[in-house]
């Protein structure tokens, strides 16, 4: 078996507007474009991913919300039409994807051993959430790489940020262990927006970019502060600030994908590459890459880093 490898992690947000703006054949609604800077950011991310040649993409989505444990797609082929419940006018997408069930099961098993409740989703009629689909489309529109889809357990909202993100940390560590055990060359996708203050009404023409800007200044400033730290590789500071960022910018990162991804990567103090930033209906979105392979940190030989992420989370 090949040595397991986490090649990279992407911050890969999922506004369905990006799919709508691109006009792929799978999406029924058609647009006049829009959100180009974010879509061009994803073009660069696509090129970077293409060069990595991973075996599998793992995506953690805040729009598959589960209350009893952390769930994993567990059906080899899933297809259907995904209609966004919030933006059904923009996103009615025919999807078809292949799941790496063996790796998903390994993640679930490792999670159980770590003390988490985990479940495999085996219903073949299950409709995959639009967050998972949007992130996967934007990063790899060819749909030719198997995926592992992971739900967002609602603990950060149901209990509190600290306990919730501590669970996501365990989930990330379990994911790392499973990738090592199965010998996969994996890329991780954190499907999260940054600041999440948004407008409450949509323009008459959704892609009218003259109406698009940050919903508020504080959210924008928080996004810039966090992105700058990420670009400099000051991830300890990022995680120290994370609870305050979540609180003050209403950051969607609270749902756990970002923590899950960095825990799986063993919290590298590694500079991220920013492909682009833009707002969608006022929310802040950044497409970013932590390239572990380029940094010589991708191969999984030993245990996860001996850092104390829970300590970071609480500052």
């Amino acid at each position, binding site marked *: 078996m090949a040595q397991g490898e986490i090649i990279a992690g992407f911050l890969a947000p999922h506004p369905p507007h990006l799919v709508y703006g691109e006009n792929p054949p799978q999406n029924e609604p058609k647009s006049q474009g829009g959100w180009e800077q974010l879509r061009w950011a994803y073009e660069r991310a696509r090129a970077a991913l293409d060069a990595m040649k991973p075996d599998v993409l793992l995506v953690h989505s805040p729009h*598959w*919300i*589960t*209350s*009893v*444990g952390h769930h994993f797609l567990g059906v080899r082929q899933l297809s259907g*039409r995904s*209609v966004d*419940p*919030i*933006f*059904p*006018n923009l996103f*009615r997408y025919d999807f078809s994807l292949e799941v790496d069930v063996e790796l998903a099961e390994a993640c679930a098993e490792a999670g159980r051993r770590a003390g988490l*409740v985990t*479940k495999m*989703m*085996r*219903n073949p*009629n*299950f*409709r995959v*959430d639009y967050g998972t689909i949007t992130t996967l489309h934007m990063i790899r529109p060819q749909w030719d790489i198997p995926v592992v889809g992971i*739900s967002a357990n609602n*603990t950060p909202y*149901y209990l509190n940020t600290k306990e919730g993100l501590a669970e996501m940390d365990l989930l990330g560590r379990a994911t790392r262990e499973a990738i090592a055990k199965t010998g996969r060359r994996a890329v991780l996708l954190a499907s999260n927006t940054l600041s999440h203050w*948004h*407008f*409450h*009404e*949509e323009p008459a023409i959704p892609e009218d970019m003259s109406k698009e800007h940050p919903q508020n200044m504080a959210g924008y400033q928080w996004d810039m502060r966090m992105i700058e730290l990420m670009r400099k590789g000051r991830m300890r500071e990022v995680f120290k600030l994370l609870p305050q960022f979540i609180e003050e910018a209403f950051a969607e990162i609270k749902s756990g994908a970002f923590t899950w991804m960095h825990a799986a990567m063993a919290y590298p103090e590694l500079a991220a590459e920013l492909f682009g930033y833009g707002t969608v*209906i006022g929310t802040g979105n950044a497409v970013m890459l932590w390239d572990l392979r380029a940094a010589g940190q991708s191969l999984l030989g030993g245990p996860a880093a001996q850092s104390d992420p829970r300590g970071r989370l609480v500052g």
Partner: protein
Amino acid sequence: MPLVSAFLVPGNPLPKLKPEVSGLGRLNAAMQRAGRALAASRPDVVLLYSTQWLAVLDQQWLTRRHSTGLHVDDNWYEFGDLPYDIHVDSDLAHACVLGSPRIGIHARGVNYDGFPIDSGTIAAASLMGIGCRERPLVVASNNLYHDADVTLRLAAMAADCAEEQGKRVAVVGVGGLSGTLFRTEIDLRADRIATADDDQWNQRVLRLMESGDVRELKRVIPEFAAAARADMGFKHFYWILGALKARLVGARVHGYGPIYGSGAAVVEFTL
């Protein structure tokens, strides 16, 4: 009076999916009894609000005349599928879309094939025999930024629109009582209300409904919502109150019990 009956029912699909579990079976039977009472009131349309149809942008109203499909719940997929065949009173739904701005609420209709109708709406429609051709629905979303007062005003506006169209109306609020779910897998046969405090809160609220004490209900619900994590702040009850214009004189509890630790009740209100 165009409003002929009113009901509060749970939105968790487990009573529909697992009726062989005795507690869930009792709630299933209670919802069917409530459905028969609703049918006996001979409404032309059912105004339904489900806490599980989440919206953040505008007030959404289901305007699609006929929706069919197969829904799988995000959490309870292992217990089977939820087929649906739902008819909507599209004329009234469009009137609600147009009427919403008159009370200061931006609204839009939802008319898309494959739109993910929520588990609560589907379970209630299926078990109560509503959303059929004879008893079409008007379904309103739960905008997370709307409070109890906005929900109340939306329901009152919908009831007024129905009255303008000369229609007899039933109203259904779909959602739970106390909202604490068990966080680990349980044997459904050993289900119980998560805490004794939650149970006491639920029973207190149900007694107030039975006594028709609207003033006291309005006073305690915010406390109930905070102390017992009432489902979405108990906004589905305000939906009922809004349609009734607070003319509630009593209630009959057809069923009460746990669903994975949370509180669930089937209540028929006396008008």
